[in-house]
C-alpha cells in the first residue's frame, strides 16, 4: 500500500476569505507578520504498486474532482512515509513520529 498526497490551493489571484480570517486571528493572538492562504491536503492510499500509470490516475482524479482548476491549483506527489494503520493502541512516541513525517 502506497500513499499519494494531493495538495490543493486557491490560485494566487483568487481571493481566500478563509486564509484572511485565519491571518486576522493570528494577528490578534500576537503572531505578527504571518499571512495565511488556506488549502486542502488529501492523503490517498493506493492499492498495488505506485508506478507512473497509477500516479497519472491520481492526477486525473485531482483534475476532475479534488480540485476545481478554475480557482485552484493542485500538486500530486508520492509520500515516502510508510502507511500506518490507525490503531487505538498507538503510543504517544509513535504519534510524534507520524506528526514529523507529515510535516516533512
Amino acid at each position, binding site marked *: 500500500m502506497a500513499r499519494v498526497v494531493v495538495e490543493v490551493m486557491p490560485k494566487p489571484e*483568487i*481571493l481566500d*476569505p478563509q486564509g*484572511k*480570517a485565519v491571518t486576522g486571528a493570528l494577528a490578534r493572538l500576537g503572531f505578527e507578520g504571518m499571512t495565511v492562504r488556506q488549502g486542502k491536503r488529501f492523503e490517498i492510499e493506493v492499492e498495488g504498486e505506485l508506478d507512473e500509470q497509477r500516479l497519472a490516475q491520481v492526477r486525473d482524479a485531482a483534475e476532475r*474532482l479534488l480540485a476545481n482548476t*478554475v*480557482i485552484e491549483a493542485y500538486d500530486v506527489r508520492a509520500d515516502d512515509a510508510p502507511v500506518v494503520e490507525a490503531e487505538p493502541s498507538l503510543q504517544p512516541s509513535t504519534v510524534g513520529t507520524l506528526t514529523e513525517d507529515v510535516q516533512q
Partner: protein
Amino acid sequence: MTAPVSPAPLVRAPGAPDASGVRIGVVTFPGSLDDQDAARAVRLSGAEAVPLWHASQSLDGVDAVILPGGFSYGDYLRAGAIARFSPLMGELITAARGGLPVLGICNGFQILCEAHLLPGALIRNDVRTFVCKDQRLRVESTDTVWTHDFLPGEEITIVLKNGEGGYVADTETVARLEGENQVVFRYLEGNPNGSVGDIAGITNERGNVVGLMPHPEHNVESLTGPSLDGRRFFSSVIGFVQTVR
C-alpha cells in the same frame, strides 16, 4: 433513501397563465433545501412540478429542470462538486447541451459551474459571513428562456442567502460574458459578496442554461416576501416551452 414525495397540488396563482401540460422538473439531492419551495413556485405558476431524484438516470420527459438551493452532499469538498457527478446530472448535462432549459439557483448555480455548463466558479463571500437579505438586482439580459418576461434594465428584488456567492472567472471569460450579453443579473446598491463585475447571474451562449445566486422561488407570494419578481422566471420558461411546442 427514497425519492421525495410530491405534496398536494396548489391552485395556480391568480393571473398566472394556463400552463397545464408544461412539466418542470425539480431535482432533489441529499442536502437540497429549497426543492419544495421551487416545486411550489412551479405549481403557483400553473405548471406541473415533477420531482426528480438525484440517483435516477431519467429526466422523466420534463420540459425544463430546476436545480434548487441548499447544501447538496453537505457542500463537502466544494459546493456542488459531488452533486455534479450524480447519475441524474449525467443525463442533465447532455440534455442541457441539447437545449433543455435549466435554471440553477444558489447551490444549483454552483453545481452548473462545477459541471462546466456555465463558466467560472463561486467562492466564499468576501465579507466572510453568510449573507441573507432582500437583494436589488438589475436584469441585464432578457435574451434567455428564463428571463424573457422581464424588461431589459429592469430593477427587481429577489432574496439572496448564501455563504459562497462570490462569482469569479478569469479576465478573458468575464470579458466574453460581458461582450456576449451573457451576464443576466447584476447586484445593485452594493456588492454583497465580492462577485467580479457585481455579477449575480449568468447564462450560456445558447441562453437555455441560467444560474444565479438569489432565490426567485422565494419571491412568488406576497405573504413571504417584499416582491413577486420571482414569478417571471417561471412564466418565462413556461412561455418558452409553449412557444416551441
